[in-house]
């Protein structure tokens, strides 16, 4: 178990935005989440994500949750 607050989940929002040619602020607008919160998510500083936010992100970006979030095992 990683220490509390730490995790091995990678948010691949950058890649998805790049592929779709969308800016973060436009995504924030479409999803209805503040730009600050979306930046927190993009930079991997979010501790949790609501299913409702994930649903909207998947709707707007036309992707699956697995495309957005991936598990990256720690290097040993």
């Amino acid at each position: 178990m990683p220490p509390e607050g730490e995790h091995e989940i990678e948010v691949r929002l950058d890649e998805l935005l790049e592929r779709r040619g969308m800016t973060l602020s436009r995504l924030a607008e479409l999803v209805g989440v503040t730009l600050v919160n979306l930046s927190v998510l993009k930079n991997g500083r979010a501790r949790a994500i609501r299913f409702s936010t994930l649903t909207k992100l998947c709707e707007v970006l036309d992707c699956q949750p697995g495309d957005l979030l991936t598990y990256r095992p720690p290097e040993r």
Partner: protein
Amino acid sequence: MATETKAIKPGLVRLVNLLFLLSLVALVLRLGFAVQNVGPGFLTCVDTRDALAPIQPLFPGVTNSGGRLCDASPDLEQQFLLLVHRIAVPAFTCAVLWFLARWLRTASKGPFDQQVPVVMRGLGRLLTVGGVVAPLVQYLSAAYLIRTMTSFYDWRHLTTFGVVPFEFRESFSFTLVLVGLVMIAFAKIMRAGVEMRKDLEGTV
């Protein structure tokens, strides 16, 4: 966030701070008065409410009138007992107000500050334990003081004449102890709330 910081009005914090300072001044004055009156020629008196009126004999230099047992030449032990008797409850009051002021100051930073339930639990413990201990100390010091003034001393007699009950009864408040217990329980609930809030932080 703005509503959180306004949850505790600054006026209330200032009022409790003022009450604490007043109680501290009163306590210091009591202490100062007691220390100033140390030495031969000063009376050391304890209120007995006439409960010891029929009691004889008294030790030399001790008078029993007007519901007060007084020693004209008190020794250091008697003066110490009188001091403890006089400051036990005011010191407790002062400590409660200090804790209350600290609690409000902490809560004014935000009701979900981690220190809020900690200080609240401390205040609850103080009320619960101090609410019993302070009156008990006040009574015991009076009882021991009486013991130094009369050879006719027996715990059973003191109980019979009502000296034991009135000292304790007048200062002890069951409600205060209950409030302390409620605060301890509520602090536990608040702590759970603070933890839940912490879990939500960083949620997108």
